[in-house]
């Protein structure tokens, strides 16, 4: 229930064995020996809720059990600020880097695991599988600054990678991890670059070769007291967000809670008018209670001036807040969505149907009344369906091609409704004959006059499958459709059919349909090759027309 209000999804409550589960700490102290695990889905933009520390902190502030922490940057007592020097070679491969130090931290097994887990979650999410940002964490006491972030040819980089017993060159490292179930997914990010990114300390010790692997030398352990965190990136904004999240979450375990040294950490101040908040949500709260609501969302707020402004302090953990509407949402969440009075907008409008859909709806009803059953087939299909199986070459169709289909079923958008109906019959061969099916739906064809180079076309297709071809049945259906559309059979102003050739149809058993002075489609008895290719055994006739000229 608490999760629901806060916008979290309690996926399932499982046993302790479920390693990726998280404990929900609403009422309990975290780390309680509760063996029940709660699997929780957090909103995709709330990176601060990805670890237990942040989640518990967020919920406790929400429930007003603790005050929202204020994150601070501190200078090291001994004066020496660590520096990370970025050389210009990195521009060719991974141009950005930011870093911070967590001082006097105390790890336990649980904390350490959570620290590693958060990095992994960030890597998968905002870091886009390390392509945008990669995180490296190091035991600061094993190295000495200033640090250098540079890029070197793979052959010149040589170090002992994390948890390995000997030194390798960068090229060897790539080979080494080619079969690693985890790391192999990241190799492509730098593999074909002439230079690989690498971070050294002042003595030439390799900290890491981002985004692949850290060095073993700087490995952090449960006894590590000072952690050097670096984020290398192709997107500087995301690198700052990631670094901020990591250090704010784990500064809880520093001697001076919520303090650390870092490059970017800052609280931003925003001002929002209470009026606007009330108006957007549809409530009428006093400015002071709005400020209180926001404070519960870790957005420390107070009323300023004569009460017509609320000043909000946005902590570095909340990179998702980029506009006043994000603040308004937090106020609404704290107020409780389900406490908001529901109202009906006074917006007065006259409804209109989309004419093409209106015509489609009317025709569907009458086609069913004419004894045909409606099918609903896929808009995507294989090249074979619309080309080979109908006896035409794919290049002669105006088909739109998909670049990244996972299977052959999604190679093209259909250029005809016929294959879908033929496949529907093939899948229902056990049903009593005759089978009479229809579909009114869109096909897609290339059209260079459109902004995207393609357009839909609304087609009507019907098919008759029985022991006899039933051309007269399909022909009769065409006559009925034309009757419904008030188009008379006449050469001058009505519709007519004229013998035609089409590879899908049996020679001499195919006609082209003309209406409104244009060709609108064809009808005929399928060619035996088509019938066989669609795994059918009976004669079959069909009709397909474009209905857009009848609008």
């Amino acid at each position, binding site marked *: 229930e608490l999760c629901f*209000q806060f*916008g979290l*999804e309690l996926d399932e409550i499982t046993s302790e064995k479920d390693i990726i589960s998280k404990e929900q700490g609403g009422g309990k102290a975290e780390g309680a020996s509760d063996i029940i695990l709660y699997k929780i889905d957090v*909103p995709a*933009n709330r990176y601060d809720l990805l670890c237990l520390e942040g989640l518990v902190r967020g919920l406790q502030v929400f429930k007003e059990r603790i005050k929202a922490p204020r994150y601070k940057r501190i200078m090291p007592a001994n004066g020496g600020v660590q520096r990370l020097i970025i050389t210009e070679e990195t521009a060719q491969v991974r141009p950005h880097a930011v870093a911070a130090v967590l001082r006097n931290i105390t790890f336990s097994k649980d904390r350490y695991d959570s620290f590693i887990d958060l990095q992994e979650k960030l890597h998968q999410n905002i870091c*886009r599988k390390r392509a945008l940002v990669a995180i490296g964490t190091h035991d600061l006491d094993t190295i000495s600054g200033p640090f250098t972030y540079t890029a070197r040819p793979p052959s010149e980089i040589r170090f002992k990678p994390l948890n390995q017993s000997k030194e390798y060159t960068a090229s060897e490292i790539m080979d080494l991890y080619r079969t690693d179930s985890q790391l192999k997914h990241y190799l492509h990010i730098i593999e074909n670059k002439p230079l690989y990114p690498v971070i050294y300390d002042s003595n030439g010790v390799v900290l890491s070769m981002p985004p692949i692997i850290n060095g073993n030398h700087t490995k952090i352990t449960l006894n590590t007291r000072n952690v050097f965190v670096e984020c290398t990136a192709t*997107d500087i904004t*995301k690198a700052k967000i990631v670094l901020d999240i990591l250090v704010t979450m784990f500064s809880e375990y520093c001697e001076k809670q919520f303090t650390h040294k870092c490059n970017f950490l800052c609280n931003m101040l925003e001002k929002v008018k209470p009026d606007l908040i009330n108006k*957007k*949500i*549809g409530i009428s709260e006093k400015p002071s209670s709005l400020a209180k609501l926001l404070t519960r969302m870790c957005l420390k707020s107070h009323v300023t001036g004569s009460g017509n402004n609320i000043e909000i302090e946005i902590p570095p953990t909340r990179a998702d807040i*980029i*506009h006043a*509407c994000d603040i*308004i*949402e937090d106020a*609404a*969440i704290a107020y409780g*969505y389900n406490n*908001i009075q*529901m109202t009906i907008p006074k*917006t*007065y*409008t006259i*409804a*209109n*149907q989309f004419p093409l859909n209106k015509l489609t*709806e009317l025709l*569907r*009803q009458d086609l*069913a009344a*004419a*004894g045909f*059953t*409606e099918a*609903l*087939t*896929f808009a*995507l299909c294989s090249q074979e369906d619309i080309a080979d199986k109908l006896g035409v070459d794919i290049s002669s169709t105006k088909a*739109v091609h998909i*670049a*990244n289909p996972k299977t052959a079923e*999604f190679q093209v*958008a259909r250029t005809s409704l016929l294959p879908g109906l033929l*496949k*529907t019959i093939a*899948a*229902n061969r056990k*049903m009593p004959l005759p089978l*009479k099916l*229809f579909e009114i739906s*869109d096909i*897609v064809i290339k059209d260079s006059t459109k*902004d*995207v*180079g*393609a*357009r*839909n076309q*609304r087609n009507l297709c019907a098919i008759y499958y029985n022991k006899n071809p039933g051309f007269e049945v399909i022909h009769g259906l065409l006559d009925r459709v034309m009757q419904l559309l008030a188009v008379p059979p006449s050469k001058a102003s009505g519709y007519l059919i004229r013998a035609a050739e089409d590879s899908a149809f049996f020679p001499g058993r195919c006609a082209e349909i003309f209406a409104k002075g244009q060709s609108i489609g064809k009808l005929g008895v399928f060619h035996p090759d088509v019938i066989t290719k669609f795994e059918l055994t009976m004669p079959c006739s069909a009709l397909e027309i474009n209905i857009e000229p009848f609008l």
Partner: protein
Amino acid sequence: MATDGPALAELLLQRLERAGGGGLGSLEAAAALGLEHQHVTVPVLHSSPVCSPQVIEAEQRSSKRWELTPEGKEIVQEGSHEARVFDSIPAEGLPQSELMKLPSGKVGFSKAMSNKWVRLDKNADGGPRVFRAVESVQDSVREKLQLVQQGEAESLEEKDRNELKKRKLLMEVIIKTYWIRKGSAFSTTVTKQETDLTPEMLASGSWRDLKFKAYNFEALGIMPESGHLHPLLKVRTQFRQIFLEMGFTEMPTNNFIESSFWNFDALFQPQQHPARDQHDTFFLQDPAEATDFPMDYLKRVKKIHSQGGYGSQGYKYDWKLEEARKNILRTHTTAVSARMLYRLAQQKFTPAKYFSIDRVFRNETLDATHLAEFHQIEGVVADYGLTLGDLMGTLREFFTKLGISQLRFKPAYNPYTEPSMEVFSYHRGLQKWVEVGNSGIFRPEMLLPMGLPEGVSVIAWGLSLERPTMIKYGINNIRELVGHKVNLQMVYDGPLCRLDS
């Protein structure tokens, strides 16, 4: 003996009358009347116009009986194979090769040998020759079969019966018999009953004096021949109806191919967003790129992404036109909503309510409830000063029309709405809250670059068409509903779609 209906029935009824209240068995009745049993079975009797279920009642029983196989019958007539072989051997014997040519030769010879009725002289002149070994034989097989034919199979020893069964001369058959009793309207006098009214009866008025055979109201009628509408599209029709009742105008969604610009960028969805990944979205190879954009608007979109503006910090990244140009199969109909809202912004603002129900495409892993294409239902309201309460109120009205009254709202995240809320309804069957839709207020970063006035809010919600349809029609596998693997019987048998009942 006549076996036509009335005559037979009358005889049977008379026998039944004599048998009294206890009734009689159909087998005995048939034997007594000299009929084949099949003429006395109840289906036959009840189909006779005189013996309705009210006249006679019958109870089905079954009994076992031994019968001769066709071969067994032949043996009763002609003698057993071995006897026939014995009979055909003259005193001077017969060459084995000739014996084997006889119809009973093979089987008869081996049996006759094992009975020691005949002997084989392999060294005779002109090849092996068969001679009689005894003077005369007793054909016990034939005798036993004769007993069976006379209905005295029980007098045979079981071992003999089994032996004959093994030789496929006897078979055990189960016969369905009936125990026939007088019915509530029993009478021995037979009145001929008419099947149905005819034009002649109406013309002559004879219907007044005729008795009519009772209808069997237990049986089903004959289904009318007709076509059928597809269940998913029946539900679509209802959703359209609901939107129209609520004053929403239908959007032109007949464009499956969309540019990334309208599908993502216009909605303030950043270019590195996972939804824009190859794994989630179908990109086009041909035509690969869109060529035509409203350039002023595009510049404003680029600025809001890369630098911010309109009170927003933006996403601060390097926005690329190439990404926006990429053609895709639209992943949501909200791309069309964006086009409609942009169009709305190009004229003097008037409030608008839009809806659409159409196909969208996702390059996802398929399972029992997910396909690569599905239908999205979407509603949009644009007006000055719309609130979150207005969104919830509109949703309440919409879902009430679907027969869903208990609603709850959960905070959620969506890149182009803020605030965002997921809609849950209480499912009585599952006894839990289930998600029924997603909703929110479009972000200012989406609306203001379009040119909509600052005070205008746009509320929107969406849901899939497939999910409520599967719940409504109790379908577990989406492939039975959508696509060519549809179960046509399900389409034929589907009820009306009444969402509120």
